[in-house]
């Protein structure tokens, strides 16, 4: 589009042309001269001591260049994978942080733990050799269930972590909560499971390591959401490569959802092996390998209680959660079920006293870390399920109990009892709107119609708030973050007026190349197709924290907005010189600098030309060139929120739950591109529906084998599982971000699981069903219905 496309417009996504025409450039597409191929040998045991590892036969096979084990890496001084966030327990002691070697040393701790790495001329040769490695495993009893892991006498994942307890963490005022419960007219209680999820981005992970013996320069191409952070963590802590000698490139990446926002062992192994062998080494994850080596998400068991007065006003909330970390700490693992969870337990309500304790537990399972929403869907699920339980038990309408307890619009900024201060919002407006859009008034008639067709129908609400735009660095530091959480952007204006933006976030499906170009086009008045966004290469982009936690527009977009403002400032100075006017008389508008009240003006391209060909230029006071950089550190999180309504129909014969309708009203702040926001909300809802109805990472409790280790058993949501959704935004402006944006990447995933499960429980309520764990699979629903029927028959 050869014109300005500004904020609020919905142009087609720039990046889609290369994706839909097969011209994307993914790590697996990259071929380097002399490249060799790697394959990992992974543990088939959930827990075992590693005796001798006999690599002789494998090393002697045709085409094999090397076989490496954990012992080889340790002998070479390679460090363990670091944790990016440390938490402190209620006893004031730091969490247990056992070493996490890139290739297992001494023990394997989950099925999939990497034991050895083979490099060969071909992938087939590497795989065949990996199969020829003989590992003398001495199997140990495994523990995958958290309650079992905490029980005295349980197998220990780490010998020096008693009771498998990584950290016993808490937030909130326990005394105030006890007082609230003491005076309560009613207490609603619930025990629930937040099911383990496996992210399954469309593109599996991949990595290529390369070493240039001439310059001493290492390069890693990786499927990462944050290449600069990988460079920092891997270079500094694992491989001890100085930052200026290490380049990390994350080219096109086919979906992340959190799965690709950690520093993984494979990245370090291929880079290290490339150095040892002086040849590029490529590894591409197989789909089934991904199931047992990508970090998993969620996996909580929670007991929660809500104290209410006689009118149904919330007095206090108590939450006790067990959170699974798996067999090692992943990069952000311990932060997710603590700092990104407990502070959201106030939801959109005025609950005055909240206390949350979390036991963070090691088990013999794949490490657990952030997955779209990360902590916040879990918190929302607890709150919104409890609210429904309370409403049912007290006989209060489910929308009404929410309204009665919502933070009124005029109460913002609102300080919750759990750390965070919401800057803006209007939850009642969202709820009122969704009640109207979802035709809640017409629900009884629809339920009647379903009943006539022999089906149960239910309607469920979920109102939520999330904290995103990660994150104010100082606050994050106080909460244990070991790095900053700002973002950076460079706006590079070329001599002819086109613009290249270098930004520290990473685009892997979110449409940044479009949204960010709109911001620049809007601000500088440069045509949309003359703005390109560059990201994902540490040699090109200054620095950046990457993309996760709905932060890219909020934090990266703010940095971009600031850098654009700096460009305008300088452009005005240059224009003032060219127009022989005073700087304060020059206005920059619509891509032109003009002297106020006159028709004298210079175009942006003319100004850029003067900056790079400074023949007529104020060289005494101004440097040539037109390129500005800004770092932006937010002053607070942002708090998108909204209200969702799900409607389900259940077939009593089979237990199949059909999502009949879904309506979402979300407050995401200023909308830059409504089409992209809609897409993000849709995708998010679908992922949340996946958690509620379909997806489940299941381990065998005895053997520790992953039973849902392929798409034959791990059920992803499909297009035909979903109704046409109605989504809209009902926004308040963020009070502290430059453009008023709040972020929208995780809204759907955070709001939808509770809405769907509340609807399922509503449908089954006539049978006396009080709670349904996720996923609400047909088998589970059928058993609930049968047990309820047996119970009713017994009465």
């Amino acid at each position: 589009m050869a014109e300005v496309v500004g904020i609020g417009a919905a142009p087609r996504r720039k990046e889609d042309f290369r994706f839909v025409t097969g011209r994307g450039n993914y790590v697996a597409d990259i071929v380097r001269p002399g490249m060799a191929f790697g394959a990992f040998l992974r543990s088939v045991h959930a827990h075992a001591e590693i005796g001798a590892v006999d690599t002789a036969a494998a090393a002697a096979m045709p085409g094999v260049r090397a076989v490496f084990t954990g012992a080889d890496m340790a002998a070479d001084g390679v460090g363990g994978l670091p944790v990016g966030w440390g938490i402190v327990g209620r006893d004031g002691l730091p969490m247990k942080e056992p070493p996490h070697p890139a290739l297992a040393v001494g023990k394997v701790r989950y099925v999939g733990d990497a034991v050895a790495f083979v490099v060969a001329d071909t992938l087939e040769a590497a795989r065949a050799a990996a199969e020829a490695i003989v590992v003398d495993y001495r199997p140990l009893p495994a523990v995958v269930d958290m309650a079992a892991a905490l029980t005295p006498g349980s197998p220990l994942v780490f010998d020096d972590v008693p009771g498998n307890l990584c950290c016993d963490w808490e937030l909130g005022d326990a005394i105030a909560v006890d007082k609230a419960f003491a005076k309560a007219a009613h207490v609603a209680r619930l025990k629930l499971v937040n099911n383990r999820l496996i992210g399954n981005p469309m593109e599996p992970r991949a990595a290529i390591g390369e070493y240039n013996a001439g310059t001493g320069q290492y390069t890693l191409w990786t499927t990462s959401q944050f290449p600069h952070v990988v460079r920092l963590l891997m270079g500094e802590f694992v491989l001890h490569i100085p930052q200026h000698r290490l380049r990390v490139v994350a080219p096109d990446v086919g979906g992340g959802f959190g799965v690709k926002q950690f520093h993984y062992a494979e990245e370090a192994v291929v880079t290290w092996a490339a150095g040892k062998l002086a040849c590029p080494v490529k590894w591409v994850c197989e789909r089934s390998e991904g199931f047992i080596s990508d970090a998993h998400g969620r996996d909580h068991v929670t007991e929660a209680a809500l104290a209410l007065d006689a009118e149904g006003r919330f007095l206090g909330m108590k939450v006790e959660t067990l959170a699974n970390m798996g067999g090692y700490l992943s990069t952000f693992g311990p932060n997710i079920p603590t700092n990104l969870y407990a502070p959201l337990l106030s939801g959109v309500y005025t609950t005055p006293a909240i206390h949350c304790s979390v036991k963070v537990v090691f088990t013999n399972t794949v490490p657990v870390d952030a997955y779209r929403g990360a902590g916040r869907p879990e918190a929302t699920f607890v709150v919104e399920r409890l609210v429904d339980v309370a409403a049912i038990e007290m006989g209060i309408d489910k929308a009404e109990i929410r309204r009665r307890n919502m933070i009124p619009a005029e109460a913002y900024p609102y300080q919750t009892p759990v750390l965070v201060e919401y800057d803006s919002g209007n939850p009642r407006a969202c709820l009122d709107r969704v009640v109207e859009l979802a035709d809640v008034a017409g629900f009884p008639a629809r339920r009647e119609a379903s009943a006539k067709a022999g089906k149960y129908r239910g309607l469920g609400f979920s109102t939520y708030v999330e904290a995103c735009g990660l994150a104010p660095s100082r606050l994050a530091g106080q909460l244990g973050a070991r790095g900053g959480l700002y973002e950076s952007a460079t706006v590079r204006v070329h001599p002819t007026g086109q613009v290249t933006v270098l930004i520290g976030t990473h685009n892997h499906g979110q449409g940044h190349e479009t949204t960010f170009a709109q911001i620049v086009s809007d601000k500088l008045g440069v045509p949309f197709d003359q703005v390109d966004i560059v990201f994902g290469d540490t040699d090109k982009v200054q620095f950046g924290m990457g993309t996760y936690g709905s932060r890219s527009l909020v934090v990266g977009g703010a940095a971009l907005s600031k850098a654009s403002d700096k460009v305008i400032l300088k452009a005005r100075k240059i224009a003032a010189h060219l127009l022989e006017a005073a700087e304060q008389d020059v206005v920059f508008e619509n891509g032109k600098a003009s002297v106020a009240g006159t028709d004298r003006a210079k175009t942006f391209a003319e100004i850029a030309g003067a900056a790079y060909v400074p023949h007529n230029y104020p060289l005494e006071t101004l440097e040539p060139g037109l390129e500005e950089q800004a770092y932006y550190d937010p002053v607070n999180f942002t708090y998108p929120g909204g209200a969702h309504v799900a409607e389900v129909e259940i077939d009593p014969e089979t237990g199949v739950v059909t999502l009949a309708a879904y309506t979402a009203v979300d407050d995401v702040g200023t909308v830059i591109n409504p089409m992209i926001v809609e897409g993000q909300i849709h995708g998010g809802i679908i992922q949340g529906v996946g958690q509620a109805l379909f997806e489940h990472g299941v381990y065998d409790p005895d053997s520790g084998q992953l039973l849902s280790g392929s798409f034959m058993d791990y059920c992803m949501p499909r297009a035909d599982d979903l109704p046409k959704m109605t989504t809209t935004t009902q926004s308040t402006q963020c009070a502290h971000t430059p453009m008023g944006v709040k972020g929208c990447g995780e809204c759907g995933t955070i709001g939808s699981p509770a809405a769907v499960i509340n609807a399922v429980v509503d449908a089954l309520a006539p049978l006396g069903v009080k709670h349904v764990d996720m996923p609400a699979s047909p088998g589970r629903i059928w058993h609930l219905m049968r047990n309820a029927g047996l119970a009713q028959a017994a009465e």
Partner: protein
Amino acid sequence: MRDFAYHKPATIEAAAGLLATIEDARVLAGGMTLLPTMKQRLAAPEALVDLAALPLSGIAEADGVVTIGATARHADVAASPILARVLPGVAALAGGIGDPQVRHRGTIGGSVANNDPAADYPAALLALGAEVVTDRRAIVADDFFVGLFETALAPGEIVTAIRFPAVRRAAYAKFRSPASRYALAGVFVAALPAGVRVAVTGAGPSVFRLPAMEAALDKSFTPEAARAVAIDPAGLNSDIHADAAYRAHLVGVMAGRAVAAAIAFS
């Protein structure tokens, strides 16, 4: 995937010859089952003998007998006008296998020879009393499906066609596994001149008949009669998607739906 030799013979004799002389040679039909197993390195045959060039994909009807060639694809069976006329239940079954990609590659011969305990076709063959025709003989369905992934085929024996009776009062209903969409429980009901036959797939280690339900449906061919038969969960499969009790229940529900569909066809 390990290396293997690839052969594409032009005649059945040549195919049989290759299978007889090459040790560990395997027949390749649609490849929808065999190739994934090879990619996962669970199977590593020396050679593949591709049936694609053999004239085995026809569908014909004569004298009340429907013959479907072994390499007829699921999509061809689903769209066959002949079957729509004389054996609609089998066409509908084929149209419900897997997804469009699978239906355009997978073959009836491959499905039958593979005898996956959750595959759909075996239920149709057993309920309809079909015959499996090979390059050596004809085997009745009751003798063909021996057990879990096990059939009466001898090493190197090639399925060339399946022969069904033309019966309109016959239909299939399956409850799909949410993840794989194979049958958690699938029931084929056929009202044959000699009596009703009912076959169940997905619920047990291999396809099996339900004599009690056959007797009940002989008396009254109604969905209610099918639903009234108690199904014993003993011996049925249990996994993370469905335990034996739920599967037993689903067999009853699917039998009722199959009867309703068969009545609608006739």
